């Protein structure tokens, strides 16, 4: 009798309640208990999202698994949940990543274990909330609530410059989202007192209004994605965050921005989106090309992957704003694939960092001699990051480029440079770190992957390969949702 359960609520609240439990029961003396409870919570949280996939009807248009309850009646805000194919995949990705992050932090985190685990569980639940919310204010509350745990994660368990990075992260994202809030309240007033996204979808708005609201939305989502030129918080945050923080940041949090475009900007403001599309595409292409070049010269592995993330997210925004089915589906597949690949790459760097306490490429060399298993897995993820056919990285990029050709050949030509740059910066880093002679005695003393690390990376490797070889299970839940979305975008809402 699984049908009767409010699955979406469970997906949101199980991790959060598990987080509370960890916080209440776990202290530093009892770290093992905290780890076990956190793992149980994460696995259970992932478990409840699986029926979402099996019971999802890929042919049905609109939202599924709807839940509705009044929440703040004075403002007509409702606890309104529902998902389509896009949110489904992101919720699965999020819950899956949480399990990996809990395992990845198992021995590495030694101080305040309970708080660490709890922060990740809170984050997981709250982000599921973002993906499931169908009420704009609920969406905003979840969207903003992600800030506090991430702020604490970076600031408490981060590297030497963690405080600067944490504050920068917080203020950047808050700046964007406050204007977003003003825009939401404006829409609330215009729509006659409703925060429901479904009402917003039907709301006619004049072009100047659409453009202004679009800009306010854009501030929030572009910072989160992050798009050039508001990306500067990301490398700092990534470099200073602990491995788990980087993984969640890259794999899930960046997707909140792109998801915002898909769920809010496009359907609510179709004319504004068309009007601004050229601008967004330009920024996306700058991200793809310019940030790809920036990544090439990085000396710090985490920074390199961070810049590579920005470049890949440029693909996502490009795919979204060319308004055709290939581009859109490609963007969403790219989001999921990037979740796996960038998460895996950050975990790989974490594996090295835990042993050597350095992220500098120059400190490494010849790691393959001491860590062959690790080198093989790292290879797979590096290739996926550069978009090799047969890995998940290829599918999304290929579809986006195909979509871009349809829209404008030059978009596609610029975007396709990533196939060169992406391969260049990833493989060049890989070569310098893994191949060559053993660089120093620290590298000579390295030990290969532990069983725990192998489990985490192995699971991700399976996901990357599966998605690359047989993307259909991922793509088929998207078709109807993407069609719905494109219908919304093509229908003008001018009064």
């Amino acid at each position, binding site marked *: 009798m699984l049908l009767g359960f409010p699955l979406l609520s469970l997906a949101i609240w199980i991790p959060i309640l598990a987080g509370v439990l960890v916080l209440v029961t776990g202290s530093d003396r009892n770290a093992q208990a905290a780890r076990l409870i956190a793992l149980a919570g994460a696995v259970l949280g992932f478990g409840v999202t699986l029926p979402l996939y099996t019971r999802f009807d890929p042919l049905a248009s609109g939202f599924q698994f709807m839940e509705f309850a009044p929440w*703040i009646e004075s403002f007509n805000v409702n606890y309104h949940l529902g998902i389509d194919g896009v949110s489904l995949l992101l919720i699965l990705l999020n819950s899956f990543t949480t399990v990996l992050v809990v395992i990845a932090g198992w021995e590495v985190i030694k101080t305040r274990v309970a708080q660490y685990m709890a922060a990740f569980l809170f984050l997981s639940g709250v982000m599921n909330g973002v993906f499931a919310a169908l009420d704009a204010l609920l969406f905003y509350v979840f969207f*903003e*609530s992600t800030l*506090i745990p991430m702020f*604490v994660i970076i600031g408490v368990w981060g590297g030497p410059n*963690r405080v600067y990075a944490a504050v920068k992260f917080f*203020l950047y994202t*808050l700046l964007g989202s406050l*204007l977003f809030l003003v825009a939401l309240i404006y829409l609330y*007033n215009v729509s006659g007192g409703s925060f429901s996204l479904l009402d917003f979808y039907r709301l006619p708005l004049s072009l100047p209004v659409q453009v202004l609201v679009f800009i306010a939305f854009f501030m929030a989502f572009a910072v989160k994605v992050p798009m050039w030129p508001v990306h500067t918080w990301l490398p700092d945050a990534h470099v200073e965050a602990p491995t788990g923080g980087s993984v969640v940041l890259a794999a899930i949090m960046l997707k909140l921005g792109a998801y915002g475009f898909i769920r809010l900007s496009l359907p609510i403001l179709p004319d504004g989106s068309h009007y601004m599309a050229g601008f967004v595409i330009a920024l996306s292409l700058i991200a793809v090309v310019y940030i790809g070049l920036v990544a090439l010269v990085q000396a710090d592995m985490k920074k390199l992957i961070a810049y590579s993330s920005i470049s890949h997210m440029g693909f996502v925004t490009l795919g979204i704003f060319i308004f055709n089915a290939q581009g859109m589906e490609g963007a969403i597949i790219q989001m999921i694939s990037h979740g796996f690949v960038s998460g895996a790459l950050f975990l790989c760097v974490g594996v090295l960092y835990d042993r050597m306490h350095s992220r500098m490429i120059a400190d490494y060399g010849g790691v393959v001699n001491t860590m062959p298993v690790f080198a093989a897995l790292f290879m797979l993820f590096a290739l996926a990051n550069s978009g090799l056919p047969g890995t998940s990285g290829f599918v999304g990029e290929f579809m986006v480029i195909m979509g871009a050709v349809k829209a404008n050949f030059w978009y596609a030509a610029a975007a396709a440079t990533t196939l060169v740059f992406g391969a260049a910066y990833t493989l060049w880093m890989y070569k310098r770190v893994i191949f060559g002679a053993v660089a120093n005695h620290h590298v000579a003393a390295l030990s290969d992957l532990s069983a725990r690390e192998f489990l985490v990376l192995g699971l991700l490797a399976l996901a990357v390969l599966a998605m690359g070889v047989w993307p259909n299970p991922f793509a088929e839940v998207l078709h109807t949702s993407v069609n719905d979305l494109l219908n919304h975008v093509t229908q003008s809402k001018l009064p």
Partner: protein
Amino acid sequence: MPYITPLMPAYPELFLLVMVCVILVVDLFVSDDNRIVTYALTQFALAGCLAITFLTSSAQPAYTFSGMFVDDLMSDVLKLLVYAGVMMMLVYSRAYVAARGLFRGEFFMLVLFATLGMMIMISANHLLTLYLGLELQALSLYSMVALQRDSAVATEAAMKYFVLGALASGMLLYGMSMLYGATGTLEITRLAEIIFYGVARDVVLVFALVFIVAGLGFKLGAVPFHMWVPDVYHGAPTAVTLFIGSAPKLAAFAFIMRLLVQGLGAERLVEEWQQMLIVMAVLSLAIGNITAIAQTNLKRMLAYSTIGHMGFLLLGILSGDLIGYGAGMFYVVVYVLMNLGSFGMIMVLSRSGFEAENLEDFKGLNARNPWYAFMMLLLMFSMAGVPPTVGFYAKLSVLQAVINAGYVWLAVIAVLFSLIGAFYYLRLVKLMYFDASQDTAPIEPHGDVRMLMSANGLAMLVFGIMPEPLMALCIDSIQASL
């Protein structure tokens, strides 16, 4: 129809007055070691007021003293919150004042007199009543600031507070006298009627309005009448600062509602005071939030943050409709809760001979006591207006009212300054969580403080997840009273 005695609307005030006299006499016979008796009696007096107000409350406004005094739903709700605020303040400050030799009869007497003044202000329906309540409150507060006789800072703060406060009262009184000249009445409901029918001369009214708004600005601590706020907040004993920053803000809100909205709420006058409030609100947001960044003393920082919050409150009121007033009331209630918690935390960390009033003193609190650090984190994020804390909904409702009134640009300015505000709240969180502690003294407050502090901090989260009851209460009470 139940029988209503003519004095029934004023029962809580009468009860408190009687209790003050009783406590005054009883305190003479209590030795210093048993001062706790006075404390208990004070709490009992407030609890009694709470019960009486609750039992005599009704949705219909009731007038007494020939229409000088009103008891409506808004006054009931605000009074209940005032009692609760004062009771919380007494719990928080008991150990603190005891350690500083202030645990004396005078302290409680002044607290109760100030409370009585606030109650009278809240229920005033006559300019004289309003003024008397205001002065009773203000005079008690002046002397409370100076209560620490041998502290030079406190004396200076009290002087400043008194001189500027007297000036502001003078301005207010002058404005009121002009209102009387223009309309021939001091009764607020009559005043509104006369202005509505256009008998009074507008020039005189607007002139009066300027003085009244200036006086109000002072009482709220809004820019450009904010000069006293940082000095008084800093100089006064923390218990008194907590008091000044909590319940009197509720009374000041009532004051604005009675005078500006009920008395001078005619449409053509609303337009006039809206302009003035816009200027004050924007300046308060700007100066409060920007200056707070430069502060190293937590009490001063919170003082400037108060100025910023008052700017937000003014935004709610200047929207000029029921939504805005409801939002303003919700904002002030939430603000008082946050303020109680933050200053309470300063007192929790302080001990005999040591004031934890510098930002530095919060360093590494998470390592010393994770629970209090978490409570403070909730309070600070609530002040910054980050969901899922209740501060977010307070800001949300005000912004909604402002946008609804057509001032989208004001809302944009407000969010930009609250972003700046987020920086210094965040800095405190940073100090608590990311920095190493210099102080290793154990934090061991009494059981009652511990419970209250936990409740206060968690309230940020609970009201953040379930804001509806509190929000509806504010909106309903405003709607029933206007």
